[in-house]
């Protein structure tokens, strides 16, 4: 009797072990299946992904607030420590800027006169939304961030994301109340740009390093360290002339760009709707048609 019972218990234990192994192996298989499915860009998976992030957004939003406050305090302390050096630097910069102000005023007057003579149609002011960064995970293997604004706030796929006047990335996923910002340094980020001084066109390609590189450089380039890089109108993705960064190094013909804004500087960003197609034309809803023809589109 006893032997029979322990035999049954033994069999049950074996059965449980087998079931356990089977469950584990199915989970491993599920993980691999997800990797393959994720690669195929299936809409359902994308939707689910966006929905889950949307659900977590309020929690992340609340958690990001104290972190933001702490970062601010640390920043203040750091600023206090470097006050003298900073002051000297600012004085020198102020002198330089005063000179530039004179130049700019002269240019502005000249520009106004020229505008009048040419009957120039000015670019309309674009609509924008200010959003806060609420999630930033896995920075070693990817360069994207979550923002606390989504479709209900007017964010659309492909819109430009600016910090101050500088382009930092664009929107790739939009949930109802959250969206994902792809930084220009990400491996998937490609952006038509030009070198301002020589008007050389190129594609800015991220590769998950701090400094993205210039690829597909048009013509015979003469790119110098220190050249400003701005967006170009190619592809009608973004309006031309948005500052991106400066050329930091040119080695073996590959130029690398130091962005004006780094990911750790980002707290509040502006999501801007230029009315152009954006860099990702495959939006769920087509973007509203541009209210008037603009230079960015007309040039192509």
């Amino acid at each position, binding site marked *: 009797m006893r032997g029979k019972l322990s035999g049954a218990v033994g069999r049950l234990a074996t059965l449980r072990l087998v079931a356990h192994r089977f469950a584990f192996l199915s989970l491993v298989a599920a993980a691999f299946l997800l990797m393959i499915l994720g690669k195929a860009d299936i809409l359902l998976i994308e939707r689910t992904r966006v929905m889950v992030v949307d659900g977590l957004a309020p929690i992340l939003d609340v958690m990001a607030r104290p972190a933001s406050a702490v970062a601010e305090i640390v920043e203040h302390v750091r600023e206090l420590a470097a006050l003298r050096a900073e002051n000297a630097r600012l004085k020198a910069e102020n002198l330089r800027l005063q000179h530039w102000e004179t130049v700019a005023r002269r240019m502005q007057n000249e520009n106004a006169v020229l505008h009048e003579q040419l009957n120039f149609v000015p670019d309309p002011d674009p609509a924008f939304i200010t959003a806060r960064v609420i999630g930033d995970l896995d920075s070693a*293997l990817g360069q994207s961030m979550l923002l606390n604004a989504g479709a209900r706030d007017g964010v659309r796929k492909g819109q430009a994301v600016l910090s101050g006047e500088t382009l930092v990335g664009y929107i790739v996923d939009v949930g109802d109340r959250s969206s994902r910002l792809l930084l220009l340094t990400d491996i998937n980020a490609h952006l038509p740009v030009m070198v301002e001084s020589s008007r050389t066109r190129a594609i800015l390609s991220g590769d998950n390093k701090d400094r993205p590189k210039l690829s597909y450089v048009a013509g015979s380039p003469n790119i110098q360290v220190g050249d400003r890089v701005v967006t170009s109108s190619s592809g009608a993705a973004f309006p031309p002339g948005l500052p991106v960064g400066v050329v930091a190094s040119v080695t073996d013909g590959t130029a690398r760009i130091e962005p004006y804004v780094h990911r750790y500087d980002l707290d509040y960003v502006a999501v801007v709707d230029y009315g152009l197609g954006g860099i990702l034309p495959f939006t769920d809803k087509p973007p509203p048609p541009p209210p008037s023809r603009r230079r960015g589109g007309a040039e192509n």
Partner: protein
Amino acid sequence: MDTWLRHFVPFSVTLTLLLLTAIPTRFSGFAGITPMLPLMGVYYWAIYRPDLLPAWAAFALGLLHDIVSGSPLGVNALVLLMVQGVTVSQRRFFLAKTFMVAWWSFALLAGAALGLSWLLVGVIRHHASDPAPVMFEYLATLGLFPLLTWTLARTQMAFLKDV
């Protein structure tokens, strides 16, 4: 009811660790380094309460990590699942050992885990990313291990002493 809630502690603590890593830090020196806190959570509970953080929970946490971080789906799910599986299978070895042994074993396991995720992301994106940030991430994770283990042990004593 109370017991049921307490049994939920390991999962929710590890979930909190995951959300903590997602907080944007704006310190220039630490940019790009996020310690793998959920990895430590999964490791700890796999040793001490594998019944309360089973394989599917590790899988779910990993999947959530993939979703929040925007990394390819399934990568962290597989990594955390593997960490859970390996740790549970070696549980008897860990239980009687000193803290240094646990730390050392974690170093091996976390190295393998981060290496695996680096490799998988590289294969899926057809691009081997710079391993340096991953190395820093690894060192930061190891450095935080004692503090986190202490916190988790405190949590276990507080909530799961008798249940």
